C-alpha cells in the first residue's frame, strides 16, 4: 500500500479503507485482515442465530397450549436440542470475541493485525465447517439429547444424528481454542508503544480473561466429546454404568467446560459495558484496576464451581456444599463490576444513545440473572427448582439477556467505526426498548411458572400453567420483532446511513483515532500511547481558576 508523506487529509480523493482495498468474493474468503474476518463472523453468527431463532419460535408456539398439539414429543425433543446446540456452540460462545473482538482487538491495542492472521482465518473456517456439520445433523434426523449430550442417553439410547452433531461441536471447539490462543498472544506481544497493561481498555482485559478460558477449558470438552463418540461407536462404557462406566464422570468433564463457557459469553459483554458506559457518561471508569482484576478473578473462580450443575446428580453432598460456597463467591467480583459501572454513571452526563440503552438494559437483566444464580447456588433451593423453568429463565437472563444485550450494545457502538455510516438512531432506540420489554415479558413469567413446578423439556403441561406460557409466547413475538429490526436497518444504513467521521461518539480509545472505516493497516503511523484509558474528564473538565 502506498502512503503519502503528507499527513494532511486528502478530502477530494478518499484513501482506500479495509472495505474498498480489494473487491470480490475471493478477496473476502481468503482475507487475512482481522477486520474482514470479524465481518465474516458477524454474517455467519447472524445466520446461525436466525436458525436457532426458528427453533425458539417453534418451542414457544408449541407451549402456547397445554396440550402437545403442534409437535410430537420426539419432534419437540429435537427442536429444543437444535435450539440449544446452535445457540450455545455456534452463536453465544464465539459471539463477542469472534466478531467484535476480532474487529477491535488490534485496533484497541494499536496493532496492524492479530499475531497469527492465518490461524485467525482458519478459526473462521473451522466454525463454518463445524456449524454446517451440526446443522446437517439437525436437518437429517435431528438430535434429541439436549445440548448437554448427557451420557448414557447420548451414547446408547438416543437415536438420530448424535455423532454428527458431536463432531460439529468438536470442530467448533477448535475454532474457539485457536481464537483464544491468537488473542492471548496478540495482547501479550502486539501492544503499541506506551500501552502498558493498566492503560489497556477494559474490553481488552475482558477479552484476555475470556481467551484464557477458551484456551484452558475447551480442550477438556473436546476430549470429553471424543470419548463420548468412541463410546457410542464401539459400545464400550466409559460413561455408561451398565457397561462399567460412570455417568457422573461425563457430567464432571462436561461442566468443567460448560460452566466456564458462561464466562466466555459474559466476560466480553462486561468489557463492552465498561467501554460504552464510560463513553456515554463522559467519565473515566470508576475503579479501573479492580474491574480489570475482577475479570481475571471471575475467569479463575469460574473453573472451580462446575459442580453446582450436579447437586442432584449423585455427587457427594459435602462436595456440593463446597461448590455451593465457591459459586456464591463469584458474586463478589461480579457485583464489583456492576457497582463500578453504576458509580461511573453517577454524576456523569449520561447520554441515552442506543448503545447506552442496551447497556442499561444489560445491567437490569444481568442483575436479575446474576441474583437468581445466587438462589440456584444454594443447594436446598436448587433441589426444589432443578430442571424447572426457573433454570431456563435464569440462564436465558444471563446468556441472552446479558450476552446478547452486550453484543447489541457493541454492534451499535462500533457500527459507525466498522462501516463509516450511522444507522437510523430513533428506530434503533425503539428496537432497544422493544428488546428489553420483549425479553422480560418472555422470561420473567418463566421464573414464576418454574417456581410453581413446571418442568423444562416437556411439550405439554398442566392447564394452570397456561397463562404464564401465553405471556412468554407473546413476549417472544415482541423479542423476535425487536431482533428483526436491526436486520433491516443495519443493511439499510450501509447504503443510506449518514456518513460519520473517525469519532462520532466522542469516545476515547485508539480505535477512534483512525478513520472510519479504518484502512487495512489500521493506523497510518504506529500510535504511541501517553495517557491512561478513559481520560474523559480531562477534556470535558471546566477550567477552574
Amino acid at each position, binding site marked *: 500500500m502506498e502512503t503519502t508523506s503528507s499527513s494532511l487529509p486528502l478530502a477530494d480523493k478518499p484513501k482506500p479503507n479495509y472495505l474498498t482495498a480489494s473487491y470480490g468474493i475471493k478477496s473476502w474468503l481468503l482475507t487475512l485482515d482481522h477486520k474482514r474476518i470479524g465481518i465474516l463472523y458477524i454474517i455467519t453468527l447472524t445466520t446461525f442465530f436466525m436458525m436457532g431463532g426458528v427453533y425458539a419460535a417453534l418451542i414457544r408456539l408449541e407451549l402456547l397450549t397445554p396440550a402437545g398439539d403442534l409437535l410430537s414429543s420426539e419432534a419437540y425433543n429435537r427442536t429444543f436440542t437444535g435450539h440449544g446446540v446452535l445457540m450455545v456452540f455456534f452463536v453465544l460462545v464465539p459471539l463477542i470475541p469472534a466478531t467484535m473482538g476480532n474487529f477491535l482487538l488490534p485496533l484497541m491495542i494499536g496493532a496492524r493485525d492479530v499475531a497469527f492472521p492465518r490461524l485467525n482465518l482458519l478459526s473462521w473456517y473451522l466454525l463454518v465447517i463445524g456449524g454446517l456439520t451440526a446443522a446437517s445433523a439437525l436437518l437429517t434426523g435431528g438430535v434429541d439429547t439436549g445440548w448437554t449430550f448427557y451420557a448414557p442417553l447420548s451414547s446408547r439410547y438416543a437415536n438420530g444424528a448424535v455423532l454428527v452433531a458431536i463432531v460439529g461441536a468438536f470442530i467448533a471447539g477448535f475454532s474457539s481454542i485457536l481464537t483464544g490462543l491468537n488473542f492471548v498472544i496478540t495482547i501479550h506481544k502486539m501492544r503499541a508503544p506506551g500501552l502498558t497493561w493498566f492503560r489497556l481498555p477494559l474490553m481488552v482485559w475482558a477479552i484476555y480473561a475470556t481467551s484464557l478460558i477458551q484456551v484452558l477449558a475447551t480442550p477438556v470438552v473436546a476430549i470429553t466429546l471424543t470419548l463420548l463418540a468412541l463410546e457410542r461407536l464401539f459400545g464400550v462404557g*466409559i460413561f455408561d454404568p451398565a457397561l*462399567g462406566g460412570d455417568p457422573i464422570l461425563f457430567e464432571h468433564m462436561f461442566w468443567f467446560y460448560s460452566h466456564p463457557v458462561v464466562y466466555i459469553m459474559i466476560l466480553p459483554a462486561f468489557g463492552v459495558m465498561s467501554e460504552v458506559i464510560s463513553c456515554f457518561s463522559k467519565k473515566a471508569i470508576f475503579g479501573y484496576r479492580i474491574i480489570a482484576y475482577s475479570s481475571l478473578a471471575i475467569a479463575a473462580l469460574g473453573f472451580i464451581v462446575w459442580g453446582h450443575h450436579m447437586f442432584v446428580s449423585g455427587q457427594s453432598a459435602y462436595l456440593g456444599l463446597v461448590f455451593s460456597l465457591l459459586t456464591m463467591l463469584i458474586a463478589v467480583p461480579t457485583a464489583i463490576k456492576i457497582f463500578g459501572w453504576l458509580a461511573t454513571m453517577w454524576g456523569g452526563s449520561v447520554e441515552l444513545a442506543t448503545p447506552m440503552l442496551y447497556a442499561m438494559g444489560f445491567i437490569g437483566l444481568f442483575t436479575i440473572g446474576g441474583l437468581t444464580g445466587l438462589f440456584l447456588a444454594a443447594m436446598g433451593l436448587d433441589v426444589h427448582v432443578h430442571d424447572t423453568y426457573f433454570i431456563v429463565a435464569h440462564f436465558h437472563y444471563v446468556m441472552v439477556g446479558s450476552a446478547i444485550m452486550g453484543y447489541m450494545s457493541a454492534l451499535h457502538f462500533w457500527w459507525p467505526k466498522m462501516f463509516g455510516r450511522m444507522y437510523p438512531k430513533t428506530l434503533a432506540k425503539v428496537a432497544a426498548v422493544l428488546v428489553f420489554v420483549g425479553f422480560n415479558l418472555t422470561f420473567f413469567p418463566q421464573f414464576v411458572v418454574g417456581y410453581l413446578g413446571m418442568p423444562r423439556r416437556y411439550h405439554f403441561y398442566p392447564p394452570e400453567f397456561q397463562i404464564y406460557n401465553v405471556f412468554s409466547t407473546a413476549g417472544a413475538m415482541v423479542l423476535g420483532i425487536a431482533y428483526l429490526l436491526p436486520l433491516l436497518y443495519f443493511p439499510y444504513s450501509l447504503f443510506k446511513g449518514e456518513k460519520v467521521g473517525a469519532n462520532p461518539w466522542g469516545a476515547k480509545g485508539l480505535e477512534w483515532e483512525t478513520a472510519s472505516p479504518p484502512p487495512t493497516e489500521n493506523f497510518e503511523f504506529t500510535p504511541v500511547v501517553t495517557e491512561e484509558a478513559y481520560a474523559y474528564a480531562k477534556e470535558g473538565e471546566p477550567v477552574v481558576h
Partner: protein
Amino acid sequence: MSTDHHSLVAHQFDDAEQQQEAATLGMWAFLITEILFFGGLILAYTIFRNKYPGAFQAGSHELNVALGGANTAILIFSSFTMAMAVHYAQLGKQKLVFWFMVGTLAFGSAFLGVKVYEYNDKIVHHHVPGPNFEYHGEFANEVNPRNVELFFFLYFAMTGVHAVHMIVGAGVLIWLMFKVRAGAFSQAYYAPVEMFGLYWHFVDIVWIFLYPLLYLIGRHT
C-alpha cells in the same frame, strides 16, 4: 517507523524479535491446550484404575512390555536427534539440520511401525473394545472382562491420540525438511524448526507418561 521490513517478518510484526517471541509464546500456549486435552484422558484413566485395579492389571499384563520399552527408547532417541537439529539450526548449519531431521523422522516412523505391530497383535487376540472383545488371560477368573475392555478402551484412546500427534508431527517434519532443502532458514530465522522441536518433545513426554500408566501396572508384584 521504518518501512524496509525484513522480508521474513510478517507485516503485522515490527521486527524479527517480536515475531519470534509471539511464535514461542503461541507454541507454549498450544502445548498447554494439549496438556488439558490429554488431561481429560488421564482423569478418566485415574478414576477407572482406582475403581477396577484388578482389571487394569489384567489388561496391562496383555501388553508387550518389551515392545513398549523399545518404543520409549526409540522416542527418546528421536527427541535427541530433534534437539540436535534445533541446535544446528541455531548455528545455521543447514546440512546437519537436514540429516538430524532425517534421523528424527526415521525414529518416529520406527515408533509408529512398532505401534502398528502392537495394534495388529491386539486385533488378532480380540482385545479391541467392541462386540468382538474377549479376555481369557491369566486373571480371567478374577476380573470382569467388561472392565478389562475398559482398560483397552483407554489404551487405544490414549495411544491412538498420541499416535495421531506423531503422524501429524511426521507430516510437518517432512514439510520442514523440504523447506530446509529450499534454503528457507538461516541463523537469523529458524523459528519453525525450534517450534516444531517443542512440539516433538512434548509428544515424546506424553509417551513417557503413557508407558508406565499402561504397560507397567502391577509389574512390581
